[in-house]
């Protein structure tokens, strides 16, 4: 029988969750544009060039290396938050203000916490075989699980 394996990754919480969150992980090595890349109505990736095409990001920890494309991302993420199709957390190597806009507005205007985490390139690569992650309100580490 296989052992359930867990790794602890050091990371930077740009926005920490209010309480511990256990989330299904959707990992990708492709950057994404939320505008034209994600359907806000059903939470599915609609960019046919993306490795997770047609998969849902709703309520998952969505890992992509960095944002690209349209600055409509902020508006799309806000709409996803309203429709409850948004990812539960975002994990990046780098988060530019385009990706951070939605989570920042949700935090300050709607008291809705939308964790955003940055990992180094090396730590990020370790997520590729992982299925689940745990995020903590203390905002220091990230636990990743193979099962």
């Amino acid at each position: 029988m296989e052992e359930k394996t867990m790794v602890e990754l050091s990371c930077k919480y740009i926005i920490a969750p209010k309480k511990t969150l256990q989330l299904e992980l959707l990992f990708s090595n492709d950057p994404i544009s939320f505008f034209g890349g994600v359907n806000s109505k059903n939470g599915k990736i609609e960019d046919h060039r993306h490795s997770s095409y047609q998969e849902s990001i709703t309520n998952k920890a969505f890992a992509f290396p960095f944002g690209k494309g349209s600055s409509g991302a902020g508006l799309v993420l806000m709409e996803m938050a309203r429709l409850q199709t948004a990812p539960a957390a975002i994990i990046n190597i780098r988060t530019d203000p385009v990706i951070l806009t939605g989570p920042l507005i949700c935090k300050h205007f709607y008291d809705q916490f939308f964790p955003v985490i940055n990992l180094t390139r090396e730590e990020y690569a370790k997520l590729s075989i992982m299925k689940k992650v745990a995020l903590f309100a203390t905002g220091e580490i990230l636990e990743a699980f193979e099962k």
Partner: protein
Amino acid sequence: MRLTDYEKKLLDGKHGKAIQIAMRVLYDLGKNYEADYFVEIASCHDDSTCFMGEAQVAFAEHLVRLGARFSVPTTTNACAIDMNRFDRQKLDLEFMTATRRIEASHLALGAIASWTCAPYQAGFTPGFGQQVAYAESNVIAFVNSIVGARTNRYAGPLELLAGIAGRVPYFGLHVTENRKAQGLVTLGKDITPDMFEHDDVYTLLAYAYGEIVGDRVWAMDKLPKNISMDNLKHMSATMASSGGIALFHLVGITPEAQSLEMAFQGETPREVVTITRKSLQKARAQLCNPDIEESLDIVSLGCPHFSCAEFLLLEKALKGKKVHGNTLLWVFTSRTTYGLIRDSGQLHRLSSLGVEVFVDGCALEHATEKWNTRTYMSNSGKFCTYCFSKTGCHPFFGTITDCAKSAVQGRMIWKKKPWLN
């Protein structure tokens, strides 16, 4: 962050609730990027205009109710529809009502009603070195790279808060050092001078550049110096679609890269990547892959908004011939450019050939089902990047001349390009 007395008062709410909450968000943003202080901005470009759902509409109305006003000149980006011709576009009524609400709230905030995604071709261009806060990915790339103004990639509705507060944290591309190129994209020997006679080569190079560079600041060399403003526009828009480019340097062309040394701020490239003929072929395969080749339903131009120079090219390419009865030739432009071509008589001439010109709206918002559209053609790398996810159809990509000829013939035709040999 070090704050001025005035900024402390803004954060304390002494100048009202709206600017206080705007400052709180911007302060938090600054903390995340370890900014030491705020920098005042000269202008703002508002991209919270294209309707993507009720959240943004309600948010802008909320700002108005809080008593918010822009404290710097703020121009509006394109919205989803032509506000006067939405019925012709056959877009849902929901788009029209939402857009009018967006118009009302943004004008109440004090926005300039420019309604264009190419404000730099409609009289709204920042100065070199000026600190600004712009949203709309092509505008960000253009004003940073071609003009040399300084903005980060701000997104809607964060830019509204920057416009209200009149300042942003001093980080990222506001800072001289961060504008330094890190790597160089160069052109292989098989990219020959004759290729630059075709406008689409710039878009293909830009698509490849965006894929290579991602979200970093790099430079590109060996481009001809006489590159047109519209090709620079399409390069900005395309790089910011295939990649997350906020600033690119073209050696010998863009203001912060008059020499290689200048682009790298005295250092040397850490990495060099060569674009070859094969890269152009790969880029074309991404942008040009129609499902059906026999018929052409719509030629969609003006992503970003069409310029006066592009209208001249289009008219020349049409050679007085009418658009085919089974094909639409739609052009999206700004109210400014529309006024100029109307007053010059060009709009009348183009209309009589069957060209339809829309203002305010976005070429990517098309009522595919109501029009039963199956085939799109465009000269825009940005349009072709997003076409499938926005419409469900893969596009055909070509120059304005290819587009005009195809619209007349009612099917996709194009000149064989040297990079396909």
